[in-house]
């Protein structure tokens, strides 16, 4: 209803009628008679831009699916020509136009579903009006997905700017559409001139709006396979914790139109898919309180050398993982699991409209100074949208830290394909009773690990956390 009101400024008329049988005049089934009756009621208003409605193809039809657009945007239509194939609850039918004109904007893409009577496209009378129609289509934020495929290559966000705007400016890292992240050269691609991707990878890339040229293939001879595309789509918006943390700035109430329905962006779609996928993994959580006085002291001492807390935590985690390889393992198929050969710590970073997880590779083997430099480099690259896929999708263990917001404890969702993720809370001065019966103040932080119980069991996590707490409470190993 809201949608109808919103679009009512358009002089509208029904300008489509179903063509039951594009090839002959023979069949006139009941559905057709009904739709003909329906079609006679429309079409009196003289207008320059007309809405094309989802027609009622049968008496029981409430919504229809767009099977395919016979015409594409900008194409000239003659009265009586087939424009779109619609699937009703009973059959598929070609639907033809009542008017001459140009198909200005498709509002419901192929595969999309629209209620009977809702607008699925706009018809402009002259070529000059196509632009006007398009902007109207964009403004009318219809229930369907995207409006202009023309910009699909770079913009992953079909929503009008006014809705999405303000968070971007204050976000720590600018939005990084996956497509732009990398420009890997394919070993089997004629020096980069040609992209070799498997048929399903190509299909997925189109669906997830991922640019194949930007992905490094992991298949035979370096070809891009489906999982590379999935990884690329999922990597930028890494599925960590709640994405609500995206606005660290003192954001005033976001300037969104309340009560509107906003379709997912590509990134949100990818997060959504990943979140649902994570439900198929049986996870459990183990928490631990770690005293950080020694770590804080160490941090203070070497901060001037460019060492960051993130690097310290990553290093400590990596050293603990080296002693507990099962926590660094991953189970993908449900039948076997892999002890990952390297310890790659992915660290979740909030960015506009999502998250990205730059990866500190071989964190157990690098010294703390190069690890800190690497981290800085990764963050810079992420800002410049130049992260290579292997720099954000090769993590074997994920860290998510919300301590800077004062969050003392939280719970993270396990990214599919990895074995465990650790949620790190703020380190806070805490009154602690000691064994000799006295009370003292110590800095303590709570960590909470979510793990895949198919491969990592409670005792594994407990032992890992004990090792980690020992490393953090006596951090001398971190600087070697």
């Amino acid at each position, binding site marked *: 209803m809201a949608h109808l009101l919103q679009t009512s400024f358009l002089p509208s008329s029904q300008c489509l009628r179903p063509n039951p049988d594009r090839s*002959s005049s023979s069949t006139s089934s009941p559905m057709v008679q009904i739709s003909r009756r329906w079609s006679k009621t429309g079409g009196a208003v003289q207008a320059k831009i007309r809405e094309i409605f989802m027609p009622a193809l049968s008496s029981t039809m409430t919504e229809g699916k767009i*099977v395919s657009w016979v015409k594409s945007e900008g194409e000239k239509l003659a009265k009586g020509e087939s424009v779109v194939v619609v699937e009703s609850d*009973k*059959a598929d039918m070609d639907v033809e136009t009542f008017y001459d004109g140009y198909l200005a904007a498709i509002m419901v893409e192929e595969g999309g579903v629209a209620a009977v009577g809702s607008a699925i496209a706009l018809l402009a009378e002259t070529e000059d009006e196509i632009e006007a129609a398009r902007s109207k289509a964009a403004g009318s934020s219809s229930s369907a997905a995207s409006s202009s495929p023309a910009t699909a290559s770079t913009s992953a966000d079909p929503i009008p700017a006014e809705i999405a705007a303000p968070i971007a400016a204050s976000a720590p890292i600018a939005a990084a559409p996956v497509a732009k992240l990398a420009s890997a050269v394919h070993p089997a691609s004629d020096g980069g001139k040609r992209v070799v991707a*498997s*048929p399903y990878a190509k299909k997925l890339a189109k669906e997830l709006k991922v640019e194949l040229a930007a992905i490094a293939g992991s298949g*035979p001879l370096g070809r891009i396979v489906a999982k590379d595309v999935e990884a690329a789509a999922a990597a930028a918006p890494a599925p960590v914790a709640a994405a609500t943390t995206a606005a660290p700035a003192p954001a005033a109430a976001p300037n969104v139109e309340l009560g509107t329905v906003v379709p997912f962006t590509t990134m949100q779609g990818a997060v959504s898919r990943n979140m649902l996928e994570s439900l198929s993994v049986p996870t459990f959580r183990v928490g631990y309180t770690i005293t950080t006085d020694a770590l804080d002291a160490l941090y203070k001492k070497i901060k001037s050398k460019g060492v960051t807390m993130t690097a310290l935590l990553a290093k400590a985690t990596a050293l603990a993982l080296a002693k507990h390889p099962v926590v660094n393992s991953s189970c993908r198929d*449900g039948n076997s699991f892999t002890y990952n050969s390297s310890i790659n710590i992915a660290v979740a970073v909030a960015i506009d409209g999502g998250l990205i997880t730059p990866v500190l590779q071989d964190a157990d083997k690098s010294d703390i100074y190069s690890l800190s430099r690497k981290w800085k480099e990764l963050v810079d690259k992420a800002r410049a949208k130049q992260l290579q896929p292997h720099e954000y999708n090769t993590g074997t263990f994920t860290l998510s830290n919300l301590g800077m917001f004062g969050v003392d404890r939280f719970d993270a969702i396990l990214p599919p394909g990895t074995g465990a993720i650790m949620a790190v809370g703020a380190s806070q001065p805490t009154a602690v009773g000691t064994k000799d019966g006295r009370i003292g103040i110590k800095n303590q932080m709570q960590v909470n690990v979510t793990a895949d119980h198919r491969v990592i069991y409670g005792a594994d996590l407990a032992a890992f956390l004990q090792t980690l707490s020992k490393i953090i409470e006596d951090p001398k190993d971190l600087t070697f």
Partner: protein
Amino acid sequence: MQASLSLSVSNPAAIPRSSHGFESSIPFPSKPVNLRFCGLRREALGFSSASSYPLSTSRSSRSIARSNKVSASLGGANGSSSAPKSFDYDLIIIGAGVGGHGAALHAVEKGLKTAIVEGDVVGGTCVNRGCVPSKALLAVSGRMRELQNEHHLKALGLQVSAAGYDRQGVADHANNLATKIRGNLTNSMKALGVDILTGFGAVLGPQKVKVGKDTVVTAKDIIIATGSVPFVPKGIEVDGKTVITSDHALKLEFVPDWIAIVGSGYIGLEFSDVYTALGSEVTFVEALDQLMPGFDPEIGKLAQRVLINPRKIDYHTGVFATKITPANNGKPVTIELIDAKTKEPKETLEVDAALIATGRAPFTNGLGLENINVATQRGFIPVDERMRVIDSNGDLVPHLFCIGDANGKMMLAHAASAQGISVVEQLTGRDHVLNHLSIPAACFTHPEISMVGLTEPQAREKAELEGFEVAVAKTSFKANTKALAENEGEGLAKLIYRPDNGEILGVHIFGLHAADLIHEASNAIALGTRIQDLKLAVHAHPTLSEVLDELFKSAKVNAHVGSSPVAEPVAV
């Protein structure tokens, strides 16, 4: 004489080999050949008479007739050399595929003394390298598809944990099926008293056939039914491992991650169904501008939407594969594509395997056609509408027929069989012309595609030429109760007909069990039944056959109901 007889009876398999030995060591070959010849015939005689006794209770008159003929031919053959006045057999069929088998069975039923010559294995392409093993693979792929379709299963309330398969098990199923059907075929012919002569057959002259190296058999009539082999275009190197034809693919020796299928006809389509169900990704290479040429365009479009677009398949149309190199030394299979029209190089594909499904070529080499002055056309043996072979002067070759893929009229197993039966009908005194428009065809994808008669463009062309009106009726599987119960509502049935007299011109079905549904339409065409009469026929409810019921009922025929305006059937 007596010695050689007993030898050949006890060890029939050794005949061709031992005679070969004789030929090289004995300076006068004519005599041993005759000896051998006798022995072979004698063995055949003993075999057929022995096995025909149990049958004689019900077919006594025929078996008497046959034994008369046999004794006559026995007497004649002893003294004959070049111009046989009496024959070893009434009918010899060269090639024991489905076509030859169908002809042989019908010939025996009509009382003809029949022999069938097979140089390879009984059953031919269909049973050993075609329809039969591919159905086994497709049965597997259909089930895999169902088990993998979580959405579909959930809609039915089913829960199935991850489905997997064992490649060797699947391959064995296909192989076992072929072996079993081959056995059935062999036994059915043996039981009826058809002599199976082993060795390559060639036409030596009028009414004379050479079997193997030097066995000559005479027959009153000869049917050539040698079938076809996969057609491999120039520039394509088939290594049987990574670049394969359907012959290799049916053995399912490996399931590649990515396979290119050259040709998107029914062979390519069926294999794409198998491979994608088993986890492969598929790239089609099609020379024509559209996938699935040969199908009714509307059915093709729908099939593409269901069988291609949602699956892990992409395609290149309007391109020729000029060069295909098998995988070697860690390099993938490379396929060079050129534009079909401009002939300019377009692209090079690198895949794990390539299946060549560009059609089939007749297997007519070495048939001795030059002995009877017959020239093949692109390998096919020219025949008239009664399958009588035409020689290079355009004259009919007496007593020589050709059926099945070798004549290229309609390259389908059941068409070959129907042609064979038609020939036997003629030989036994009943003129018969097979109506090819009544022969159905099916593609066993999931869901299946089936068709009979003309496509819509063909029908419209014919209508224009002959000046009649064409109409089209369609029904959807979405409206069929049984289809919906199976949760398989995707599908379309299409009827192309003449509204003036109710004649069916073509029926095309895409949907669940389409291959089984087509026969109501093909029988109607074969028997000349009109739509106005079919409308009154009753179909059980709820069944998929109601799709056709509704299809016939939705047709608008102007002819007076109840009377057949054209009483004559289209073909008998």
